[in-house]
């Protein structure tokens, strides 16, 4: 049988709250340490203990990071999903299963079946902790089956249980026990193996939310207000965790205030208060939180208050699938709140961009005096991604048009809070406490001097200046990432975490006979280069993880009439991270429709 090396998918079915996450991360880290190109995805329930959880490890020599089309190796530990998981396997798959599971067995003849008495082995090691140890047993069995280096496993265990000697010992013992049982009682007859690869660049694993948190810390965030919500909480918790190390003086006093708010409305209000007072304030939330913040978002837009909102998108509408991923908040962010609005949205697609946009969001919001959104999603935010290291901010902080000194203020011939002096739509502001141009900020209509007004021309001029201000931002925001060759007629426009599936989608499309170019949008309002990309291609597919094609809708509204017919939507979402073949197939279908 021909070996299949470093190119398969492992699916581990457990229940949450049983320590399976530790076991899975040990596998991920060990494979990574061996130089095997690997990515891991955690599919978890909105629950603390007992509901089904799957962990998907994708090994791919081509570097594909999306979950693959099928499972090659299935670990069965959870009786609740056992039958479904087993039934969905293709012929020739491998099943490693806990033979101590009541009323469960593997009777399929067309799979490679490896029964392991995981519970019994675990009880032999530590009866009290057997539930947790059971999950480490399969790590040992997999290690033996695939040839995972024991040294790398030891290192990963040590990293996972930093400093807890007894836990490290227990876990290494359990891995060895799984390994030994496999070696002594079973015989490998399947083709799957792992092989060490040379590591050309050192990388580490980190979650997108932690990268955003660090970015915010390096962006000079001064106030974080937040209300806990999955999948964004780890941004706030990440910031809190790094404050002692990075934002605290020698007397132990912090220069970043953290306030856990009573709800998302209050969290948003605090962000506006901080921005109004002249500071860098932010919050992190998910779609339901943004829904609650809408009123304040409109106020920030209309009264021109710097404010940063991170949205880690989960599946909506309503409570939706709170622990699954989607790109469905695009329109809500871009056109948030009542009335005519338009907001700047920064959309990272890589772990490095999570950090970069983390700090850049503050420069951006103070430059344009308008709310700025970071749009991440659960897949990017809560899974671990390989990172080569974060780059220090390349530019000094941009504090925008703030008048802080009296002589600067007095040099203005006629100072008005909402007066467009430079023609870029961005007015100058003074700060509370300064005594300069003390005005009453308001969400009601106002004239260029900041005074209440319902006059038609004041309102009309103000709204047009706001549009001009945001429009002017287009070419100053992060430009799209383009991947173009010579002769392709088809362009794929996409955003965010789809970055991790796009190469595989392209390769499948090539198999289908479509040569395509790529353009990843990284900010809204979209950059002029996006329009140019569309002009260079006969057909552009707008690819999104949602039902309605929200980005496509925005493009159709804003593109010049003559190219609107060139853009076509392919949108799909089922809650799971994007699987390349599903999207490639949908694109192929769409192309057949439009290129006839």
């Amino acid at each position, binding site marked *: 049988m021909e070996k299949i090396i470093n190119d398969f998918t492992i699916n581990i079915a457990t229940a949450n709250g049983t320590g399976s996450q530790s076991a899975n991360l040990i596998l991920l880290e060990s494979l990574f340490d061996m130089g095997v190109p690997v990515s891991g995805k955690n599919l978890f329930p909105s629950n603390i203990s007992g509901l089904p959880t799957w962990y998907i490890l994708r090994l791919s020599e081509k570097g594909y990071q999306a979950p693959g089309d099928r499972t090659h190796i299935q670990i069965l530990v959870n009786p609740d999903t056992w039958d479904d998981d087993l039934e969905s396997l293709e012929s020739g798959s491998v099943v490693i299963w806990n033979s101590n599971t009541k009323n469960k067995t593997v009777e399929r003849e067309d799979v490679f079946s490896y029964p392991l008495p995981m519970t019994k082995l675990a009880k032999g090691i530590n009866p009290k902790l057997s539930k947790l140890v059971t999950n480490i047993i399969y790590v040992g069995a997999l290690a033996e089956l695939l040839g995972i280096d024991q040294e790398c496993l030891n290192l990963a265990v040590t990293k996972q249980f930093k400093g807890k000697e007894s836990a490290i010992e227990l876990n290494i013992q359990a891995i060895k026990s799984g390994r030994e049982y496999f070696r002594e009682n079973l015989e490998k007859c399947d083709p799957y193996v792992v092989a060490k690869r040379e590591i050309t660049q050192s990388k580490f694993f980190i979650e997108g939310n932690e990268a955003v948190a660090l970015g915010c810390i390096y962006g000079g965030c001064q106030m974080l207000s937040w209300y806990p919500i999955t999948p964004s909480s780890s941004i706030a918790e990440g910031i809190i965790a790094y404050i002692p190390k990075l934002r605290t003086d020698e007397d132990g006093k912090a*220069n970043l205030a953290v306030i856990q708010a009573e709800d998302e409305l*209050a969290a*948003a*209000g605090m962000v506006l*208060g901080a921005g109004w007072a002249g*500071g860098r304030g932010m919050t992190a939330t998910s779609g339901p939180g943004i829904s609650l913040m809408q009123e304040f978002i409109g106020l920030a837009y209309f009264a021109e208050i710097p404010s940063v909102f991170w949205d880690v998108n989960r599946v909506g509408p309503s409570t939706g699938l709170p622990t699954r991923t989607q790109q469905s908040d695009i329109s809500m962010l871009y056109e948030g709140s009542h009335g005519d609005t338009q907001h700047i949205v920064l959309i990272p697609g890589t772990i490095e961009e999570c950090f970069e946009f983390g700090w850049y969001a503050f420069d951006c919001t103070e430059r344009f005096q308008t709310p700025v959104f970071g749009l991440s999603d659960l897949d990017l935010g809560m899974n671990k991604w390989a990172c080569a290291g*974060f780059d220090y901010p390349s530019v000094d902080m941009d504090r925008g048009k703030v008048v802080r000194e009296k002589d600067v203020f007095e040099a203005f011939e006629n100072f008005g809070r909402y007066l467009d002096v430079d023609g870029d739509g961005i007015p100058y502001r003074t700060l*509370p*406490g300064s005594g300069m141009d003390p005005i009453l*900020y308001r969400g009601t209509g106002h004239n260029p001097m900041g005074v209440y007004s319902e006059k038609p021309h004041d309102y009309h001029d103000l709204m047009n200046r706001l549009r001009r201000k945001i429009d002017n931002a287009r070419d100053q925001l992060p430009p799209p990432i383009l991947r173009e060759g010579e002769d392709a007629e088809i362009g794929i426009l996409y955003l965010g975490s789809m970055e991790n599936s796009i190469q595989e989608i392209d390769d499948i499309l090539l198999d289908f006979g479509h040569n395509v170019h790529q353009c990843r949008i990284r900010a809204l309002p979209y950059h002029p280069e996006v329009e140019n990309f569309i002009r260079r291609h006969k057909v552009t597919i707008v690819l999104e993880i949602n039902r309605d094609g929200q980005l496509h809708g925005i493009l159709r509204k804003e593109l010049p009439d003559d190219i609107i017919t060139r853009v076509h939507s392919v949108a799909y979402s089922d809650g799971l991270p994007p699987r390349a073949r599903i999207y490639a197939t949908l694109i192929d279908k769409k192309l057949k429709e439009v290129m006839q």
Partner: protein
Amino acid sequence: MSMRRERAVKLNVINEPKDSYSGGPSSLCPGCGHDLISGMIINAAWENGVEPHRIAKMSGIGCSSKTPAYYLGQSHGFNTVHGRMPSVTTGAYAINKDLLYLGVSGDGDSASIGIGQLIHAIRRNMDMVYIVENNGVYGLTKGQYSATADVGSRKRKGPSNELQPIDLCALAINLGCTFVARSFSGSRKQLTSLLRAAMSHKGFAFLDVISPCVTFNNNSESMKSFSYVKENEVTLHMADYIPHFNPVEEVDVPEGHYRDIELHDGSTIRLETISEEHDPSNAVAALTALHEADTEAKHVTGLLYFDPSKPSLAEDLDLVDKPLLDLEDSEMRPSKESLDALNSEFLS
């Protein structure tokens, strides 16, 4: 000539004329109780000698929340959204804790849409003066009952209110608010003293001021009309404010008939007993006074409760001494070396 003019204008302790504390003309209904309160805010800030530009005027939405335009024209202000003034103030405070935050709201703001934010600002003991201009009706939307309308009270049009009112002072006391007072926009002396004391307080100073709505709720069947409150006000004590920059004078009230309470900035509020002595450090006594007044359909006014011992939000946040607003860029952005160190730590 010029000397004479200087002498003609009375100046406060920081040599500012009262004009430095005034605002624009009011657009409220003639005779509105809120305008009286605005006048007393101007007086209190002037008499206390607060630098006008170091005040931040905060408000929500409603008739009351329009008033920041009518006082303290040299102060920045923020007329925010309905009921959410506390959160905006909290965020501003986190950035600049050195300003005096003066919040004005109404009973719609504070007892309905924003009651949660009020509760949590109290819970955090936010450093601010929080005034409710309480008239029992929604004025700006033309006279619907609010959640503070008294049982049996009848506004100018429609049936009487039969729902239990929310007593914001009782709520504040139960939440452990550190300064709780009730007053009446018709009680110039008492309210000015309470406002001045509130400005000297470190922590959340809550002032529920009954402020009749002359247009929708000033008829004789209303329990928040000028005439009703005047006739049914139970005053706990006379209140006198003695600023820290003036010596505490002897008064002709006999010993034991007044109580001096020292405030955080060294000023004093002197409470002169009228009939029975009220002890503002006793939360149960304060709640009893409120309950008794409620039973008799009266309005009890005065400093109900005071607790100077609780840490305010600033202490809880444990931030650097200077306001975060004054941080240098180099303090806000950690060094390149720190990021290099983190990167290598991640890689190891």
